[in-house]
């Protein structure tokens, strides 16, 4: 009796664990992209490279003796700084030119990846995953994956606090809703854009910093986050508060279920089919539908 309950608990826990793992990846990969897209309508094709920046800075810092959490903060910060610099120089000329922003950010992405290849070489030694493992029933799990899930929840909570409880948040939401009116009321929209782009880039860097101990490092590694981040932002819609979390839950359920029953290929395909269905039914994503319902 107890053994059966033990086995059932282990199975249930493992399903929950897999969902938490997939959910964390979707949220952390998408958060930065969602803010930049939601605020400025910019489709940031260099999103993967901000993640890579976070990864490399974190790993190199750890290899020079910096403790991991500090190195990760450094990784996120460095990506944010680069983001602000990029926004001030290139991106701010492209606000009303969405197609041009795709081209420009893609060009930046190419320059960064191939530049890293030339300067840092084709691969970099990795760092190990911290915190060991724990056992539930017949399964062992990496404890660090729980940290990733916690971080995803933390990012969502922090975004809520920032956008709903701070002065910046009020001004940012105003700018997102109606930039011209916000500017007329005294909001310095230029500074909003710079800070928001920096925040989006920093979140991408944080995603990289968090996943750095679990992956192998090559300059083009940003591409492994791109599908999940773009898919989540498309399904979630422009509002990062109302859209990203529900999108993460929906896509997380789809992917976890398909991964478990039919394997990784089915999980990948299912993700993309879900996007097609969602944007057919809800063209502005989940957040667009939710905000429409509220009116």
């Amino acid at each position, binding site marked *: 009796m107890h053994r059966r309950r033990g086995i059932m608990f282990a199975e249930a826990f493992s399903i929950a664990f897999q969902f938490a793992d997939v959910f964390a990846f979707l949220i952390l990969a998408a958060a930065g992209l969602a803010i930049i897209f939601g605020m400025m309508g910019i489709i940031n094709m260099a999103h993967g490279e901000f993640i890579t920046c976070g990864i490399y800075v974190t790993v190199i810092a750890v290899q020079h003796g910096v403790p991991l959490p500090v190195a990760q903060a450094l990784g996120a910060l460095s990506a944010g700084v680069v983001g602000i610099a990029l926004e001030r120089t290139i991106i701010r000329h492209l606000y009303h030119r969405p197609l041009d922003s795709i081209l420009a950010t893609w060009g930046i992405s190419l320059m960064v990846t191939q530049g890293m290849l030339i300067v840092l070489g084709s691969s*970099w030694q990795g760092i*190990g*995953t911290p915190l060991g493992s724990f056992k539930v029933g017949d*399964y*062992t799990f990496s404890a660090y994956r729980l940290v990733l899930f916690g971080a995803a929840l933390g990012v969502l909570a922090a975004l809520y606090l920032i956008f709903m409880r701070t002065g910046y948040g009020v001004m940012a939401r105003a700018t997102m809703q109606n930039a011209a009116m916000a500017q007329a009321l005294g909001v310095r929209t230029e500074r909003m854009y710079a800070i928001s782009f920096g925040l989006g880039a920093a979140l991408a860097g944080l995603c990289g910093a968090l996943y750095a101990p679990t992956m192998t490092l090559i300059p*083009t590694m940003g*591409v492994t986050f791109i599908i999940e981040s773009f898919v989540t932002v498309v399904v979630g819609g422009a509002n990062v508060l109302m859209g990203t979390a529900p999108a993460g839950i929906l896509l997380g359920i789809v992917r976890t279920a398909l991964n478990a029953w039919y394997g990784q290929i089915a999980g*990948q395909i299912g993700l993309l089919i879900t996007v097609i269905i969602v944007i057919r039914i809800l063209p502005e994503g989940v957040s667009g539908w939710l905000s429409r319902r509220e009116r």
Partner: protein
Amino acid sequence: MTTSGRRTSLRGIAAAASLAVVLAATQGSAQQPPIKVGLLEDVSGDIALMGKPKLNGSLLAAEEINNAGGIMGRKIELIHLDPQMDNARYQEFARRLLQRDKVDVLIGGITSASREAIRPIVNRTDVPYFYTNQYEGGVCDASTISIGAVPEQQFSTLIPWMVETFGKKVYTIAADYNFGQLSAEWTRDLMKKQNGQVIGEEFIPLGVSQFGQTIQNIQKANPDWIMALNVGASQDSFFEQAAAAKLAFPMGSSIKVMLGFEHKRFPPPALAKMHATANWFEEIDTPAANDFKKRWRAKFPNEAYINDMGYNAYTALYMYKTLVEKAKSTKKADLRKVIATGEACVDAPEGKICIDPQSQHTSHHMRLIGVNADHSVRVIKDFGLIKPYWLGEIGCDLTKNDPKTQYTPTNLPKK
């Protein structure tokens, strides 16, 4: 004609005459045209860490051969294009090298997908193509000379040893494209011959980097060992994530350690208990191997790892040199006549290796290696020289006909 006009025309005749004398003098010492070697190697993009050593191997071999006088007095001229792991670009660049640059020989390709993308293009020309990677075997094509190791050299040595040492139940994880699918097929075939069983198979799309579910599936299936056929940096994250979850099964592979030097890139113990069968890995300790490694590092001091692909690229140029010198020609038909005699051999750093006449694949000195807990490499077993016998056994004989096909254990020639 005026007086000045006559002087001008006399001057013109004198200039022309002296020019003619100079031209006649230089004709006698005219240089022989170089032998153009077309290289298609990925040195940027995802697979750059494996492709860069390939280019370096060709550069080293070309420099050594040219310094020793070239091939039949002709210098090697390398024309390298970087397809960036894009199969469409492989095809475009293959056409460019064959039609515009008119190369005498084409060398290159990393993934099996890229090889199959350009093989039909090469077949329409009279240019020989050297594929320098280990792969899933089976290509019976007169244009293609395969320098890398094949399943009867890698799997037929690895799998019986893994079954005998660890057990009869294996779980396969493979990249989801032709190499992964066909290698998994070979694994099923050879496990059956060992009375073993493939208790689970997972095919992973290229670019997937998160393996939580895979790790759980492996734990549930509880195999005796894992066959690791994952390809690419993203899929290599499996090893780190499995180690973090304390997955401690022994692993076997035909591609790990020797190609992507994972044991150098990941911190221990991610690659511990990995076993592989290779004709070349940098840790080989013989006089010929050590001399080769010294020459390589003299030219490329920052090389992270001299991998099997780089070694094969280096060996391929020497093999081409041998063929051309024995045939006294660069024509494909003449080179194939030399191969048919069975005398197409080189003294490579692994030992003396020859091209098999029936399949145009290369014999290799195979060693079974194991990765220790600290990521040092030890040689567990020396299998000696193994010929690429499988294609000949199933009926491929390029000395008699040219089917231009790739065969697999379930896709054999019609009798």
